[in-house]
């Protein structure tokens, strides 16, 4: 069995205390919540933090509040993915989120893994998520581990490890906001703006900042939404490409006009990709218009270019974006 590096564990009970612990011990302190992402990475010696700050006892992270006046659902970052997938409000208002949370890995992992952890899931790559022996075998790692080269884009200077969270594309498609607590206080920003295209540091979280909650605006109009995950197996696997879809309609009928649209793809590079220019292409059209599925899937196909950073042929994965997007839209009509 692989061994973990040695570290200390702190178990604060408040967010403020956790922020303080991170700040006082940085660099060298990392957060741990469910541990399903960081522990395997530590077993691969991708990092050797001296201190893990556990969020397990921070009760305020485990709240879920529906605020009808503000029109939003606030999900604590410490909720498990199993809780998200099963929560009645999530299922009622955001079925695509219930679906994506329920498709992460396998039941035992969803019972441990948290929403905050999944949003901050480290980027993944077939050249990174390997043991030290393996990384030594390919000649000493890569940009994201101990090496100096990228094996995905050999001429590249920037890491293109893949954003592999199931929930991030869905939450962006739903217009979610991320709430951060840090040494400089609290701030909130659109989740869409939280990520950037560098696999080494793919979020805009400042040092010492902790994801406290995600708020998602409650739908104000009838809506059709879905999440597509392509992976080889129906359980355990990370997505090899993923697409989140949201269509707001002017009436609760499938032939109603589209008033707003969002399509977000994952597992391309380090950043989720919002398919753009869709407003001009489909807003105003009837959702039942068969050309909608065609237009949206072609737009997703032409704008999303998977890389050989995760297993399976990128051209095939790209094709799946087109086919599965078209089918998902057709199935919602």
């Amino acid at each position, binding site marked *: 069995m*692989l061994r973990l590096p040695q570290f200390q564990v702190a178990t604060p009970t408040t967010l403020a205390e956790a922020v303080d612990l991170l700040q006082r011990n940085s660099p060298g302190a990392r957060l741990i919540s469910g541990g399903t992402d960081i522990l395997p990475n530590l077993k691969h010696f991708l990092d050797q933090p001296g201190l893990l700050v556990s969020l397990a006892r921070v009760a305020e992270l485990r709240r879920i509040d529906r605020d009808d006046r503000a029109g939003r659902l606030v999900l604590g970052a410490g909720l498990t993915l199993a809780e998200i997938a099963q929560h009645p409000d999530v299922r009622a208002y955001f079925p695509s989120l219930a679906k994506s949370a329920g498709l992460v890995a396998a039941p035992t992992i969803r019972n441990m893994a948290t929403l905050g952890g999944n949003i901050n899931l480290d980027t993944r790559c077939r050249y990174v998520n390997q043991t030290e022996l393996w990384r030594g075998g390919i000649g000493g790692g890569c940009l994201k581990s101990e090496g100096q080269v990228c094996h995905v884009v050999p001429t590249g200077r920037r890491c293109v490890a893949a954003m592999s969270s199931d929930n991030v594309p869905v939450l962006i498609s739903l217009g979610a906001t991320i709430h951060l607590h840090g040494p400089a206080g609290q701030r909130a920003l659109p989740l869409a703006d939280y990520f950037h295209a560098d696999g080494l540091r793919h979020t805009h979280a400042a040092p010492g900042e902790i994801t406290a909650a995600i708020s998602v605006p409650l739908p104000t109009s009838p809506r059709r939404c879905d999440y597509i995950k392509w992976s080889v*197996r129906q359980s*355990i696997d990370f997505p090899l490409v993923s697409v989140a879809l949201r269509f707001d309609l002017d009436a609760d009928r499938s032939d109603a006009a589209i008033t707003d649209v969002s399509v977000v793809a994952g597992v391309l590079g380090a950043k989720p990709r919002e398919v753009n220019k869709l407003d001009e292409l489909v807003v105003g059209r009837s959702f039942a218009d068969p050309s909608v599925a065609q237009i949206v899937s072609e737009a997703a196909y032409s704008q999303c270019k998977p890389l050989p950073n995760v297993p399976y042929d990128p051209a095939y994965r790209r094709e799946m974006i087109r*086919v599965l997007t078209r089918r998902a839209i057709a199935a919602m009509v």
Partner: protein
Amino acid sequence: MAADTPTQSPEPASAAEAERPDLTRETWQIGKVHRKVDAMERMRGVARYTDDLKLPGLLHAKILRSPHAHAKIRRIDASAALALPGVFAVVTGQDFKIPYGVIPWTPDENALAVHKVCHVGDGVAAVAAIDEDTANAALRAIVVDYEPLRAFFDPEEALATRDREHTINPYARKGNLSKHVLLEFGDVDAQIAGAELVVEGEYFFEGTTHGAIEPHCALAQVEPNGVLTVWSATQVSHYLHRELAKVLELPPHRIRVIQPPIGGAFGGKSEPFDLEFCVAKLAIKTGRPVKLLYTREEVFYSHRGRHPMKMKYRTGFTADGKITGVDARTILDGGAYSSFGLVTTYYSGQLLCAPYRFPAYRFDSTRAYTNKPACGPKRGHGSVQPRFALEIQLDKAAVALGIDPIELRRRNDIGADVATVNEFRVGSNGFQECLSRVESASGWRARRPTLPFGQGLGVAGSTYISGTNYPIYPNDMPQAAVQICLDRSGRARVFSGANDIGQGSNTMLAVIVSEELGVPLEDVRVLSADTDLCPVDLGAYSSRITLMVGNACLEAAQRLRRRVCRSVAQRWQIPANRVVLAGRMALDREDPARNVSSAQAFQWAEADHGLLGEVGSYNTPKDRHGDYRGGTIGASPAYSFTAHLAEVDVDTETGVVHVKKIWIAHDCGRALSRKIVEGQIEGSTYMGFGEALMEEHLIDPAHRGVHAGPSFLDYRMPTFLDTPELHAMIVEAPDKNGPYGAKEAGEGPLHSSIPAIANAIYDAVGVRLDRIPFSPPRVLAALRERAQLEEQGLVPAHKPDRRPRSAR
């Protein structure tokens, strides 16, 4: 599972029912459903696997592994490691200069590399330390000076190189040729030339590995009396015992090998591995117990899984579908060491000559050394790959000749009590019934002609051995032996060298003893796989245990039964054949009200005969094989037969193959314990399904020969959600060589699951998948290729009248 069939499984008998023997039945335990003897400790999580064993003063060992696929070792400097506090000893190849190999003719590996490493992951040095972290720190402190050599990842490229410098295996005598076998039976060229149809095909079977959940683990201790005890997760205690004695230069009587409960093996633990030698040597050096548990990555690099095989087949047929001749050329990618490779090379041809009659046959198989982890035996050793090729060849012939694929197979059935073209004697044969069972259960005749484009049914058949006639090292002693003792409390103790690897062999022994001596299963204690306490058995491989160890056990049990019955008969003054032992009693068959407890019966017998102990042994019949060089390899006392019928749904836009159902009929001679047989049928079929659709043991030549993904995340085996509905049906054609007629069930039902799926894909969408796995990108590419040919008018549309309107 087989709820709609006449062999519906009875529910497990309650304890009370088991006490009430049905005297009208010929047997009271054989063929029933039993709880495995170790089920409760497994299910409750209290079974003590090797890694659960802890001894006072225990040290932990780790092995330093090569990052190079091929390199000379110039120097190893372990001084910094030895200087670390808590490090007790370091060993290298210099401590293990005697080579070993499970096949005595090909000892071509060392416990640790002596002068060179031959694949990424080859062991270089091992340390023993106070804990695992210290051992890992010590590995980091060892300095190895390598001189990298050109590495070969393609078997044909490796074979083309004959110079010493590029010879991979340090003990190889013929460059990178590991083994070549060419055997010809009859005039193949004339038979194929005279055929009315010749089907030619090229097939590639990607390597796959076992994926047992328990990683290899071994623990060694030198006892105060000087005996070296090695506990190991092995399926071949006896061969491990022999090789330990050889490499460590210790007399065998000073070594004891114990196999604790094992968490899966599937052929992946059927030879000695570096860790067993390392813990033994380190225990001797340090005087303390030493344990080593592989990481999952180490399991992948130790491998010994299924060989990648590149196969070229030419098969001749008459117009009515009869095979006229089979001509096969096969390249086996062996990896860096021989392992069982000599046998695999023979098996790749020798095991193909049933269930169909071949009037003429030639196979030409070449195994190459490459700079990859060594391949070896995996469930269905050697014959899963050629079976894949042959069964697709038959399907292609059926299509070309317009004959129903099941009918074509019936016409070629070799039948019972015959000799194959390679001179193996086949006894009982239930293949025809297997075909009929899957045909009717699946609704083949009515459904196949009507399933729409995209959906299909495919069939395939196969055979497998129930043990090999000749042991791995030549000797005239029995292949299996069992010792049984009865005691005055009414219990039976069974001592057997056989390795229970989850296949249920301990339960099988308990069932036989229970059947013969009338005591229920829970009163039978089976002690197995301890070389100090048990008679020698050769181990769990080649599906040999039920037939061989079962026969040995039956012999001992029947000897005891006769003594007990005589003693009871004497006291009741009736003939001995009126005494029945069943239901924890001895009864008078003609007056069942006259009975005594088993304990009383055993006491009477003990008073008459002294302590009740008997041995039984089994050796194979020597008239089953061919009279030519290699003619013994693959010959078996009895052969099982299987038919698979798969139903698939192929998504023509994504290439995803959804295997909905597989019907499996397997002739196991006689099911001694019904649920275990069904479990083996389902487990085998599942394993084949995984190899067909997802599994790939790939070494990446573009990245210096590392494994493409040595973890269970990247080596994808199907989950519950991916697995089709499996309908297992037991067919019983009892064989006179098996105990109660029993033959094997653990490996045969894997073979034809793979080609059945390939043939179903063809039926569904008209594309041939001649290489595994049938991954979505590969299926999609094949579909597009066919569509293009159809558009160009080069091939007719497949199922043109059964397509949805839009797609026509």
